[in-house]
Structure formats: C-alpha cells, structure tokens
C-alpha cells in the first residue's frame, strides 16, 4: 500500500492542524437564531449523511444517527466540537472548502444557509434531545459476556442429555438407540486416542457383562498417555504451533518441541485448565516456564532487511499475532480486529488493543535457557564438581600471563613466523577452540611474499574431518577467499587441517584467521600447534599457541595451559587432564543446551503507543498496558514489570469475573467430541459469532467444569457417559430432513478422521507404530539446507518415521505429502476447527503413495504372522484390526476370492483405504 501517502493524509487530519487546512474566514457564518435540533438539524443529517454514516454503512467509522457516536467521532477523530463550529471538522467538510474531503461527496450539497444552521447548533452546545435518532447499542449486552448462572436440568436424567433432549423434542426428534458395544469402544478410542482399540481390548469389553464396564473403560482411556497425544493435536492447531519460522526462509525452529511435549504432559496430568492458561501466558512466573511457548508458537519473519519501516511492521505483526491468538484462543474474542479501529461489533476499543500490546510488548521470539529438571541438575552438578577438580589439578600448568609472550590469538588475523624451514607438508592441529568446532577461513603458508598454500598453486588440502555445511568446506581453506562464507570448520572440537605443497619449499611464516572480514568471533582456534615436514608423519613442531598471551574476548577468556619445558610424564599427565576438562565442559554445555526451548525471551519494554489506523509509522499517544476496559481493569501501569503484566492478564482470563474463558473451553471440548461446537464459531463468542445451539447446556458445562476444578478429564468423562455420546450414529430419513448435520444430536455425528489419526491408525494396523513419547520430532521431509529452506517429501520411510504424527516436525507452509491433503493445517494461522474436504488427491495419496504401499506390505506380513496362511483367518484378523469387528459371510467370501485372484497386499491396500477404516463410527 502507499503507506507514505497515507501518513501524509493523516497529518493533515490531526485535529489541531485542521484550522490551518482551510481559510476559516471563508466559512459561511453561523445562523443568527436559536436552533431546534429536531426540526432544523436532524432532517439535514438524514437527508445528506445517514446513507453513508448510518445503520447500513459507517464510512470512516463515523455514524451520525446516534447522539453518542455522532459526538464521539470516527477514525479521523471527532467531527463535532461542541461550542466551536469553526474548528469542527464536520463544518470544514460540509462547507466544501477542504481540498481533500467534501461532504457529501456526491449528490445534493449543503449550502451557506444549512451550513450556517449547523454551525449555530454546534456553537450553541450541540444539544441533542434524547428522543431524536437511533439508540446506541450496548455492546456489553450480549449472551457470552453475561455472568453464568448454573442452569437447572430440565429433566430427571443426566443434565447433558436432558438439555439435548429438550431441544430434540422441540423439533419432534429423539435420540437414536445406544450404539452397539463394538461401535462404542471403537468410537471411544478414535475420539479420545486417535487410534483404534486393539482387537483384544474390543473382545474384553464386548464380553464384559458388568454394568460399569463402559465407565471403567472410559477411566482407562482417560488414564492412557495416548489421550494427551491425541488432544494435544487439537490444541496445537489452535495455537498455530509450528517447528519452522515460516515466511521467506522458513528455517527450522529446533527447540520448539518442548512446548508440544508440555501440552501433551499437561493434558495427561490433567493440569487444571486455569493453570494451563496461566502458564501459557506467564509460566516463567509460575515455576513451569515451557508453557510460554504459546506466545511465540506462531510464524516469525527473520528476514529483516535494511529499511527501518520493515522492521517496525514486522514487530507490529509479531505482537499482533500474540494479541490476536490470546484473544481468540482463551477468550473467543477477535481482539485483532481492533488493531486499526474500534471493533465493529464487540466492546473492544482500539485503546484496548494497544493496552494488550502493552502486555506483550516485552516478549520476543527466541530460544530461552530454562532451569534444568532435577535429573539434569544432578548430572550437571556432578560434572561441575569434576570440572572444579580438574581445574585445581591443572592450576599448576597455567601459563604465566603476558610478560614476554607473543600477542594473543585474534579472530581476525594471526601471523606465526618461524625460522625458515624446508617443508612439503604443513599441519595445523587445533587443540582448543573458543566455542564449538573451530573455524579457519584461510590458511596461508608463505615463502617470502608468496603464499604457496593456494590450491591454484597446486597445493592440496586434507583434514582430520570436516563439519558438513554448504558454506564451510575443506576447499575453502586454501581457495584464496576470506570470510565466514568461504571457510573451513573442523568436524570436532579439536582437529587438524593440512596442506601439501606442490613441491618442497623453504617456508618462513603461516598466516591464518577465523574470519578476516571481522563478522564472526566464535569458533576461534586458540590452542594449536603447527608442524611441518618433508614427509607426512615426519612432523616437527615449528610454532604453537604455547607462547602466546591468553586469548581475550569477552567471556571466553579461559586460562591457557602450557605443558612445554616440563618432564615428559608431567606433560602427558597435564594434557590428559586438559583433555578430560574439555570433554567434561563439553558435556556440561550439551546438558545446558538441552534445556533450551523456543518459549520466548522477556525484557522490560519502553512505552506502548497507539498506532493510528494500525500503521506503525503513525505512532500516537502512549497507552497504559491493560486488557479490555469494558470488562476489567487490571490495575497495572507502564511501570509494572512485563512479567506481572502477563500474569495480571492471565489471572483475569481465568478469574470468576470473566465468563468467557470457561465457556470457550468447554465448547472446544464439545466440538472435538461431536464435530461441531455448541457455538459454531469457536474462536468468536462475540456479537459477530453464532449463538449457541444449547445455551443452557453450554453454561451447565462451564459451571460444572469450574466446580470440578477446571479438570478437562472430568469434563470428558461427563460427556462420554451421556446417552447423547453413546447413541448410534445411524442416520434415518426423517431426522436427516429436519437436521441433516445432526446439530441437535439425534445421532452421533460420524466424520472422517483427521490426517494424524489416519496415519497413526495405519501404523497401528500394520503393527509397526512406535509409541515412544516426546523429544525432538521426526521429519516428513528431506530438507535442502539453503538460506531459504526447501522441503522435499521423503520417498523412503524407516522405523524412525513410524511414531505418532504429533511427533512429526511441524513445518510451516508445507503439507506432508500423503496426509497433508486431509485438511491438515500448516500452522501459519491458528485453526480452531479444521475444514473437512473430500478430494481425489486424497484418494490418490492413499492408493498410490510409497508410504501407504509400504504399510500395506507390512500389514500383509503381520497378518501372516498373526493368522497364518489361511486367507479366512487373515481376513478376520484384518477386519478386527481395521474395523474392530469380524467380517460377515459375504465380506469373507468376497475378500477370500479377492485375495486368491490378486494378493494379500492388494487386500491390505484396500482395507487401509476403506471408509470404515477412516471414519469415526
């Protein structure tokens, strides 16, 4: 957009600049009479203004037919300044003297007389009698914002069923009969675990005559860790959790997974939902810091460019993502709508939006080092102790600092002169680096002025191992090019690189650096020796770091140990100790990094400013951090620490004074049970959202949920034990006609499984599903590690790929090549409810992909193992694994004939494609 032109216009419109925009002398004079608003002014507004600034349209956010709004003004500020018509923008517009804006833009204009009348009205105080014009809508007068009273069950039965039944009866509908036990257990597992039950579990349940068999099964299912894995997927969709940054380069976000594990763990441990919410906004203040991964789970533009406007827009977008996601996820309010102007429907002002911005202003996208857990702490303490011991033992080897020594190594350039020596081979051995694997951008071996090491001179490079990276290659060690992008990095933390000269020569000097361009100061080799020889292996040390002063660069100034001029045994002992020290420190560092997680970093921000029309180039007044003024005052201010700001918001969200959070979450849970929520717009409980189909049921669930200690598992249990949930899904014509989508729940609504559940179920059927939980995910792609990452679908799959799909690294902007087509979101946007489409590409993927073909093969093998060589037994086993029921006679006959004519893998391929396999029954 032409942002520049935009902001110019805005400057022109700022209230106090107004007066200068036109010549006030030219305004028609105010009428010299007492004005009657109702008789003289209101008809003018109706005639000239209401079409564009009335109930149908509010151009520039201005509405003139309601007293409060007419006086409040629109996006450009106030239009009427009571008592001062000459300064009232409205008068400037309707006088036709303003070059930019003339009102009305088309049709019948005002004339000197009518302008004069309006001026007189404004000058006389802009009095607006109460009985004139429309009434302002109280935007707080909306069901979702009202206090929840615990509704009484309308029938003597399970309250949930009672509320549903009343609605059914009103349409002449009734519940379907209870589903059969096989259907019930299959549904229970698919909905709650995203996996079918094993045939053994099915048989046990079907043959259990106990009355409480089902409720016991529900308890078992809720206690299984599979539950957290399944329901975490719903939550991760909602909070746009991804493991790459998105945008242009889409780099991997390797420490994002701890948040995914945190969600799974929280669900499995049944962390109370109010705590679950608080920890996601301010877990750093509550002793469980990983939850704040929520704040930064969204995309992040890491391509910053040089123009400052771009940077400001990117930052504004980052914060908008947090404001909007927090609003929609926890409150069901589209707070993001108020970024540019007051919310069109809900009581959310633009000030509120920027107050919320003040809450998140200190949050940045980044990894954070987290306090290690007890186990890691113990390991680290042991290692730390050993480091102390080693350092004490090594103390006597510390080289005396300074005095008489050569200058310390620098990252940018080092010269090692020595008495000339005849050599063909030169080896540079690195014994210590400032950090991780050491790097050298160019190694030069001089004979006088001539660098003989260059590959172009016929010299050959070799090494003890190279770090694998497209930018860092062995060839760069002697290619004549400087800088990080043309450098070599050793494979390990120590290592060597060697140059074989084209011919023996008398050499007298080595020059080398980490990065002669001066951009990088890490990976500097600070412990090294340079050896030379005429033959490889016949080395003679010609120089080393031993006589250099200790390296100094910020925190990496570590003591330098010297082992020269000591008895051999002592030298060896010292070197051994040093090696162990380095190794131990390295282990410590790995453990330290293992506690890194992409959960954001926090810093106290400066003042938050309102951006006029959402434009970061048009900052306006400073705004006090806070929440939604019509709902709450958080009692914080600009001095409040940013952590306390987040905590204050979180505390209000789950407080008793806020009815939204509890209504919103119980609706989400309901939605994932029945395919649709009681409120069909799960992220919008505002006035623009859909009203609940069963308002009392929603409030009953919300009340019960809170009295159950915000326990999600108890809520599930209550829902799972209802007749509503346990009824059959069989459709019938009469009810279909009245309520095709079963929104009133006359049947359990069937639906296709989501991508993850389809994939997991296949692995379950073939018997290769790996139930390893947690930790870094597996990849669905081969990644081309360029600046801009490219992802190519894997072609071959091995057991490492056979974990549950919740553990597949979630790459933004890419679809998993087989299952992505099943409406699997890519985490670019939060998704409260997946679309559910049926496409030929889905069919092709399930029929022909190498993944499914491999699984069909494995499934066939499993059938042979489980059921032997008899087709009927194989078929029965396959049916019980895939559909949780034995085949009937005609199915058995058909399948037997089919296997005979074709093959067992052809049969398993069909089974994995079957509707019955893919649908929640």
């Amino acid at each position, binding site marked *: 957009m032409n942002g520049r032109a935009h902001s110019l216009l805005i400057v022109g419109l700022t209230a106090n600049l107004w007066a200068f925009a036109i010549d006030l002398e030219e305004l028609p004079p105010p009428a010299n009479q007492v004005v009657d608003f109702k008789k003289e002014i209101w008809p003018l507004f109706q005639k000239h203004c209401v079409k564009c600034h009335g109930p149908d349209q509010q151009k520039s956010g201005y509405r003139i037919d309601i007293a409060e709004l007419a006086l409040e003004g629109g996006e450009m500020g106030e239009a009427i300044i009571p008592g001062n018509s000459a300064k009232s923008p409205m008068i400037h517009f309707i006088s036709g003297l303003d070059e930019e804006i003339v009102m009305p833009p088309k049709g019948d204009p005002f004339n000197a007389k009518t302008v004069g009348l309006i001026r007189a009205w404004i000058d006389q105080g802009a009095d607006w009698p109460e009985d004139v014009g429309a009434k302002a809508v109280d935007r707080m007068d909306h069901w979702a914002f009202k206090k929840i009273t615990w509704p009484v069950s309308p029938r003597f039965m399970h309250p949930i069923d009672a509320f549903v039944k009343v609605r059914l009866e009103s349409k002449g509908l009734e519940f379907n009969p209870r589903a059969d036990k096989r259907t019930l257990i299959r549904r229970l597992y698919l909905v709650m675990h995203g996996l079918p039950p094993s045939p053994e579990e099915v048989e046990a349940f079907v043959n259990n005559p106990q009355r409480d068999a089902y409720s016991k099964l529900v308890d078992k299912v809720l206690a299984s860790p599979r539950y957290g894995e399944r329901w975490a997927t719903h939550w991760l969709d909602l909070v746009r959790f991804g493991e790459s940054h998105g945008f242009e380069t889409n780099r991997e976000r390797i420490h994002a997974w701890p948040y995914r594990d945190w969600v799974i763990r929280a669900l499995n441990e049944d962390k109370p939902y109010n705590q679950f919410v608080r920890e996601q906004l301010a877990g750093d203040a509550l002793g469980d810091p990983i939850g704040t991964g929520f704040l930064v789970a969204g995309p992040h533009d890491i391509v910053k460019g040089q123009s400052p406007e771009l940077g400001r827009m990117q930052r504004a977008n980052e914060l908008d993502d947090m404001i909007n996601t927090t609003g929609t996820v926890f409150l069901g309010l589209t707070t993001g709508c108020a970024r540019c102007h007051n919310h069109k429907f809900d009581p959310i002002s633009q000030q509120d939006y920027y107050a919320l911005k003040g809450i998140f202003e200190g949050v940045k996208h980044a990894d954070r080092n987290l306090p290690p857990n007890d186990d890691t702490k113990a390991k680290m303490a042991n290692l730390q102790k050993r480091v102390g011991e080693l350092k004490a033992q090594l103390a006597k080897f510390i080289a005396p600092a300074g005095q008489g020594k050569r200058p310390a190594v620098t990252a940018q350039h080092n010269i090692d002169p020595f008495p000339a020596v005849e050599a063909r081979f030169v080896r540079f051995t690195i014994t210590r680096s400032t950090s991780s694997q050491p790097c050298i951008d160019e190694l030069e071996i001089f004979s006088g002025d001539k660098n003989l090491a260059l590959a172009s001179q016929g010299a050959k490079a070799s090494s003890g191992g190279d770090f694998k990276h497209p930018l860092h290659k062995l060839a760069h060690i002697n290619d004549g090019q400087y800088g990080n992008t043309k450098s070599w990095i050793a494979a390990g933390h120590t290592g060597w690189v060697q140059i074989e000269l084209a011919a023996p020569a008398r050499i007298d000097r080595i020059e080398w650096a980490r990065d002669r361009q001066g951009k990088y100061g890490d990976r500097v080799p600070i412990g090294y020796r340079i050896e030379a020889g005429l033959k490889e292996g016949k080395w003679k040390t010609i120089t080393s770091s031993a006589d250099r002063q200790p390296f100094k660069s910020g925190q990496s100034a570590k003591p330098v140990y010297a082992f020269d001029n000591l008895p051999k045994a002592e030298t060896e002992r010292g070197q051994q100790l040093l090696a162990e020290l380095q190794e131990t420190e390295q282990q410590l560092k790995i453990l330290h990094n293992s506690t890194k997680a992409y959960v954001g970093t926090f810093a106290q921000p400066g003042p938050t400013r309102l951006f006029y029309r959402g434009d970061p180039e048009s900052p306006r007044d400073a705004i006090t951090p806070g929440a939604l003024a019509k709902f709450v005052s958080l009692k914080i201010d600009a001095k409040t620490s940013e952590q306390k700001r987040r905590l204050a918001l979180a505390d209000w969200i789950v407080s008793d004074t806020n009815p939204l959070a509890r209504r919103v979450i119980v609706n989400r849970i309901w939605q994932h049970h029945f395919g649709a929520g009681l409120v069909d717009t799960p992220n919008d409980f505002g006035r623009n959202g859909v009203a609940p189909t069963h308002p009392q049921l929603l409030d009953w669930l919300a009340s019960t949920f809170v009295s159950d200690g915000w326990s999600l598992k108890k809520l599930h249990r209550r829902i799972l034990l209802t007749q509503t949930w346990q009824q059959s899904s069989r459709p019938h*014509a009469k009810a*279909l006609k009245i309520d095709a*989508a079963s929104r009133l729940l006359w049947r359990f609504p069937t639906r*296709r499984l989501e991508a993850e559940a389809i994939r997991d179920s296949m692995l379950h059927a073939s018997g290769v599903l790996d139930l390893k939980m947690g930790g870094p995910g597996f990849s669905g792609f081969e990644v081309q590690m360029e600046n801009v990452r490219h992802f190519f679908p894997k072609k071959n799959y091995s057991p490492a790929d056979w974990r549950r799909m919740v553990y597949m690294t979630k790459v933004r902007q890419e679809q998993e090549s087989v299952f992505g087509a099943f409406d699997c979101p890519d985490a670019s946007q939060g998704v409260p409810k997946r679309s559910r489409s049926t496409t030929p590409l889905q069919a092709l993927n399930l029929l022909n992909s190498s993944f499914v073909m491999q699984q069909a093969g494995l499934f066939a093998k499993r059938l042979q193992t489980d059921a032997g060589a008899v087709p009927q037994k194989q078929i029965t086993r396959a049916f019980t694994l895939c559909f949780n029921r034995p085949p009937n006679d005609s199915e058995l006959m058909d399948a037997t004939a089919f296997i005979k004519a074709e093959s067992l893998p052809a049969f398993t391929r069909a089974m994995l494609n079957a509707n019955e396999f893919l649908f929640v029954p």
Partner: protein
Amino acid sequence: MNPLLNRRQFLSNTGQGLGGIALASLLGREGALAKEDPIRPKIDPTKPFAPRDGHFPAKAKKVLVIFCSGACSQLDTFDYKPELIKRHGQPMPGAEGLKTFQGDQGNLTKSPWKFKPRGQSGKMVSELVPQLGELADEMCFIHSLTGKTNTHGPGENFMSTGYTLDGFPSMGAWVTWALGSANDELPAYVAIPDPRGTPQSSINNWGPGFLPAAFQGTDFNASKPLRNLTRPAGVSAKSDLATRSFLQRLNERHLEKFPGDTELAARISSYQLAARMQLSVPEVTDLSTEKASTLKAYGADDATNPIKAGFAKNCILARRLLEKGVRFVQLFNGAYQTGGEGVSNWDGHKVLHQQYAKHGPVLDQPAAALLRDLKQRGLLKDTLVVWCTEFGRMPTFQKGASGRDHNPEGFTAWLAGAGVKRGHTYGATDAFGWKAEKDVATVYDFHATILHLLGLNHKRLTYYHNGFERRLTDVHGHVIEDILA
C-alpha cells in the same frame, strides 16, 4: 441460477462445511448490510468441482497467471522512462539517505536494454522481452501498482493471497471455491512451478489457507508429474482395477449402514474421480502429440537452453489445461530453489545485466508463443491472462553493486484477453519509474479487478474464519474500471 443462497437453507446445510459457515452476524442482524451480504457458493459435497455461476455474468471464465518470481524489474521490461536514460549516472532526487531492502542507493541507472515502440499502439517495450513486446497491442498495462512489503516471501504472499502473512487462501483457491471448474477430470486449479523449482513462498502461493483443502492448487509441471498419480510399481493395471472395485464393494456395504450420509458418498465418488484423473492428467501432460512446429514456436525444442525449453513445455501445458477447461492456471517463471537472488529468479540485486540476460530469453519466447497460441485458438475470448510479479525494482543501482533493490512503491503488471482493453496503458510511475504517481493502484485493486472480470464481487466473496468475514481483498480494493473492455 441465482447463486444467492437462502440463509436458512444455508444454516441447515453446514454439515459439510464446504460452502463455509453461515454468516454469523446475520443471525442477529437480519436486514442490515443486505447489499453487501456475502454470497456463498453452493457446493455439492459429492461434486465439489462442479461449475458454479458467478455473482454476475462475465466474459472471463478462466484465468492464466504468469508469475515472474523474484520481483521482475519494470524498468528493464515494460515501464519506459526517458528521464531515467537522460539522468543516467546521477543521484536520484528525493533518495538522499533512503534505505531500501538491502540498504543504500547508488545512482540512477538506465536499463542495459533499449526500448522500442511496438505494434499499433507504439508501446515502448525493452529488447529484453522482444517477442512479448510485439504482442503489446494485446496487453493492458498497469504501471502504477503498489505493494505493502519489500520482502520476497511476504510480497509473493501479497500478490497471490492478498495478505503478506502466510496461511491465507490464494486467488486461485478463492476463484475455484466460488466457480468450480468446467472439467471435473482435471484439478480445478493447477500451479505449474518453474523447471528450476518452486518460488520463494512455495506452496503458500497456491495454498487453500482456511478454505477447504479441495480448493488448493495442485502443483505439477511438464517435467515433474503429479505426485502419487500413477499406480505403484509392481501393481499391474488389472490388479489395480480389481483392488479399486473390491474397495468400492467394501465402501458400498459400509454405506448401507449409513443411508443418506453424504460425506461417505462423497468419499466413494472421490475414488472414481481419482481414477478419471489418472487417465486425464497423463493425457494433458503428454506433449508428444504436439506438432513439431508448435514445439518450435514455444522454444520447447531449444537444445541450447534447457531451462527455456523446460519453461516452454510448461507454457504448452498451461495452454492444454486451459483448453480442457481448467479454471485457474498459475504458471511460474523463476524459482528460489536453485540459487535465488537473481541466479534462478528475477531478483537482480548484484549483477542485473548478466542475470536478466539469462532470464529474459527463458521467459520471452515461450510466454509470447503461449499468448499467441491462446489467441489463435480462440481461448483469449474467455481466458484472462495476468502477468505479475511480487513488486518492482529501484531506478537506481544499489550502492556498490550493479543491480536494483526491491521497490514496492511502483511496479508493472499486465492483463490480456477476456474482458480487458487491448493495447491500453493505465497509471504511471514518476519520471524515473520509482513511485506510482498517476492513478495509483494497490494490489487489492488489482485483485478486485481480476475477480470482477470473472463475475465476482470482491466484497461479497467472503469466507468466515476466526471471527472475520475474510476476503481476497481484506477490507480494501476498488475495481479499476478504466481497464475494462
């Protein structure tokens, strides 16, 4: 047929969710905003790609987008600026201290390619794209486009989806969601990536966003077939067929238990459609039936320039898809994958002359041949051709480099074919070709106009998502009336 759905009917029909949720606000506010009410496409879940009427009659039925990825310079192609040539080597007035994407500016630099008047209209087009230049009389140029970002990924998103952020539906998804397709044996929406790879924003350029996945672009090109299209190695045609019919029997028996369930029925028909696609897609991608003269005209036989030959084949494929009635074809020229920054796309920061000298010929002959071929076959009558790029480039060279930096403040696109003026120019940049100055147009306007040409009102083509009635044009956009034929 009036595509306006009865609201109540719509509410009772949200089970499949393909048409999108009912407009929530209407429940409480009957009557208000009636003339801007959303118009939902009426989608039969068993035939999501069936053709549907637009909001009003229109000439254009199909769209071909030629997207030059990497930001193709307007100053070296279609935006002729004599003042830039005159002031070559001088600092640009108004650019003191200006920092663009990669930093500081050098001096004004004329294009290394000369401009010549073309056709009857006398439109000045550079020697970089001579064959396209010869077709200037077919084109309707917009020289005054303005974007919102100077970064490639967001810029591509903006041009393809109307939002700089990821995750919004692409134009093609909107169009196929609204209109379906004339051919249900081919994907309704095909994205044809460059032979060198995918563009910078990759599949977000043809993604469904929050629209149902059915309406995402299917990506394949002349050298890279549609994934999972062919039956697996080791499965014979006979066995494949037998497996499908066994599967069909399984599904039909299962459906008996759920009489009237449209989602189950839709899934059965999706397998039938898949089978038809397995025949029709290879047929449409098989260029062996093309005449040698056609291959030659497009440059598909150019053995000296395999990238050009590859792009030419993609151009032929585009024509074949349009001929078959595919609704939306998005043809990419330039890729990030094999180099980016000017090496394999139009991002000429450092050595523009050298890089564009490679890219010009790859684009020029094949794209010109495609346009000519569409015209000759009468396809331009109902096909709208759109040539675009994510943003423009600066009239200056970058300080210390021989190329141009990003410039979203003024750039060029052109349209051709159904519903647009021929040999017409709309809008202009300033004397140097930096900022749009005359008839400034936004990408929103551009999108609104394209939808209008297809018979769609951009304000009423909306989908409810997360509390917003989302549009391709967000809350902006005006149809550029001046370019309508």
